[in-house]
């Protein structure tokens, strides 16, 4: 007779995320569990079990706070291989005898961004009223299976700076101003969340600088905490949504639905790549200027990846504002199993 009622291991996992596992067996049976896990797991947390963890990536458990259940959460690491299958082996023993061995395969994936070409010189030419196109684009390919969120960030020593565009830029500034003012008032009502609210208020400052490595962890912690509260505290959740909507509609005059849809399309131009700042602009002149910067990369779990340096010279037939999405050719490799 099978000892185990259920064993849950997800079949896929974004590298660097948590991997939940649970095992349930009849309460009347005394089962010991050995779990052999891959090297690429960082650490783990155990629920309801007192376990021995050997240095051979084996967890052994035969003592439980309540018999019949063992829960685990593994913290996984990013791997040099963007897609790999790893095995977790479960061995169950009863009265000193092995009763069952189950192997579970997990497919670990992540985005894998490669910049395949950076033109040394880019020329922007006018091809219609207030419309410019470029001679050559920076080629970016996502060869991995995970979604990547990219932001093009300037370095301090660059000649050309990135600017917020007119119109939508004004909307974003006014939206955040109204939103954070209302959030500050919300702190008085929800004193228990005041620390979190302060973090949200500082978020705009972080986002406007682009998401760098140091900011990613704070952003990830903030998102996790906020999501947990939004789902567990309905009253706070309603108030939070309400102030966002109020700030949005109050500033709607700055942006039309059509424009917002166009921006949406520009930021999602590739299947597994999202561009964070597509309509931010470079102010280009007929004289050649050097842009020095880098591409910051995070995934949907706010894990960060090594930044990619970007450097080029750019000029235009006449003075213009060139949106960043026009500089980048974003593509994704077709996923093959």
């Amino acid at each position, binding site marked *: 007779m099978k000892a185990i009622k259920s064993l*849950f291991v997800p079949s896929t*996992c*974004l590298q660097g995320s948590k991997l939940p596992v649970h095992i349930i067996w009849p309460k009347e049976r005394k089962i010991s569990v050995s779990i052999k896990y891959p090297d690429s797991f960082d650490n783990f947390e155990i629920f309801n079990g007192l376990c021995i963890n050997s240095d051979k990536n084996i967890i052994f458990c035969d003592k439980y706070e309540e018999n019949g259940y063992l829960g685990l959460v593994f913290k996984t690491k990013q791997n040099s291989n963007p897609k790999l299958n790893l095995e977790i082996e479960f061995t169950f023993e009863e009265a000193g005898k092995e009763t069952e061995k189950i192997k579970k395969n997990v497919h670990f994936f992540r985005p894998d961004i490669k910049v395949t070409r950076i033109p040394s010189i880019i020329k922007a030419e006018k091809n219609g009223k207030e419309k410019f196109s470029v001679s050559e684009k920076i080629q970016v390919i996502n060869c991995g299976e995970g*979604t990547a969120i990219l932001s093009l960030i300037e370095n301090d020593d660059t000649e050309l700076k990135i600017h917020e565009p007119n119109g939508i830029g004004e909307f974003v500034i006014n939206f955040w101003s109204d939103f954070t003012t209302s959030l500050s008032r919300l702190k008085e009502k929800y004193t228990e969340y005041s620390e979190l609210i302060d973090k949200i208020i500082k978020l705009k400052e972080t986002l406007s600088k682009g998401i760098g490595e140091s900011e990613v962890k704070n*952003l990830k912690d903030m998102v996790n905490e906020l999501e947990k509260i939004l789902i567990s505290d309905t009253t706070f959740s309603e108030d939070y949504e309400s102030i966002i909507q109020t700030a*949005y509609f109050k500033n709607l005059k700055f942006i039309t*639905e059509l424009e*917002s849809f166009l921006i949406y399309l520009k930021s999602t131009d590739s299947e597994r790549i999202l561009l964070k700042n597509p309509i931010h602009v470079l102010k280009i002149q007929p004289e050649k200027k050097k842009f020095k910067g880098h591409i910051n990369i995070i995934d949907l779990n*706010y894990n960060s990846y090594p930044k990619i340096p970007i450097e080029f010279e750019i000029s235009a037939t006449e003075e213009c504002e060139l949106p960043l999405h026009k500089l980048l050719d974003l593509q994704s490799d*077709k996923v093959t199993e």
Partner: protein
Amino acid sequence: MTIDPSFGYDIATGVGAVAGKEIVVQTIRSMVKYIENLEKNIENGFKIDGKQMTILCSEGLQKYSLSITPKKGIFGSPKYVEFPNGIPSRVELTQVRGLCPLQNSIERTPEGFKVDTTELDPGELYILDVEYHYEDHRLMDSLVERVIPRDVPRNLDDSIREYEMSAQLKHLDVLKQKYFNVNLRDLEFSVDVSVYQDINTKVPGIFRQQLETLVELSKKKGRAEGFKLWRRLYQLQQAEYGGDTLDILDSMHNLFTPRKFRRYIDIQKDFRYLNCTRGSDYYDDLPFPTWPKSMKIISKTDLSYDKPAAEGILIYKQADFVSEIEKMLNLENNNDQKQ
């Protein structure tokens, strides 16, 4: 399997989890205190046959259900049994025979409520349900591990996309009480399902040009320039993928309403669908996207001492969603004609 005996047992829950457990134990203890106080008062006029405590997670309620029979005393039963333990959000007494709620037997008082026993039959079985609000919104977070799958490998050729969900108790023993177990009902779980690529890859270039022309028209223009733009828009609308731009945009916008998007979601195994909203793309410049890159799907599940973990699958019917967009953009007919 052999294990090196030099490794000792470890309460491998980590400092955070142990600290979390103290909070959970205290909160559950304070909840159980309510049921103990209820029992003390009930025993004045009833015999308790069974009891159950359920935490209604999404409503923030603790619910006590007690099966009771009125006592038959030598000097008769007390006319009222008082429960001055706090004001419940809901209280109901039901006679098991006929499952008949007895509205007139419950009276609210400034301190709680009281049961009028005059109409009750001694020896008959009744169910008393009492619900109180609980204030600790972080309780579920301390008690349950919910790991949200943020991304799954994807391919536009796939007809569906699956997100595996799991909820598991961090502390099982706290749900086991002396004479009853605590149940968790309607525990919420949210998953952000990415939709951005399903729209973008289907929007034809000519439709984008129509939008751009309309955006230019919406800004202040001279008469001659305005005329040129209207003529350009007219030409674009006669083209292969033509159609009323604003109507198409409106229909696409409606796809993200919970009622419409629900069609593309299926929840299986231990979880049940609850609702969906526009997703929160916190990495974005705006925390409230009118055009969402993801949709947040909220489902719920139940956990208990006897069912300490739940698993579920969220299925996003990607092909159906894409097909709906194709219909809106009149792409299906065009594809057929090309074939």
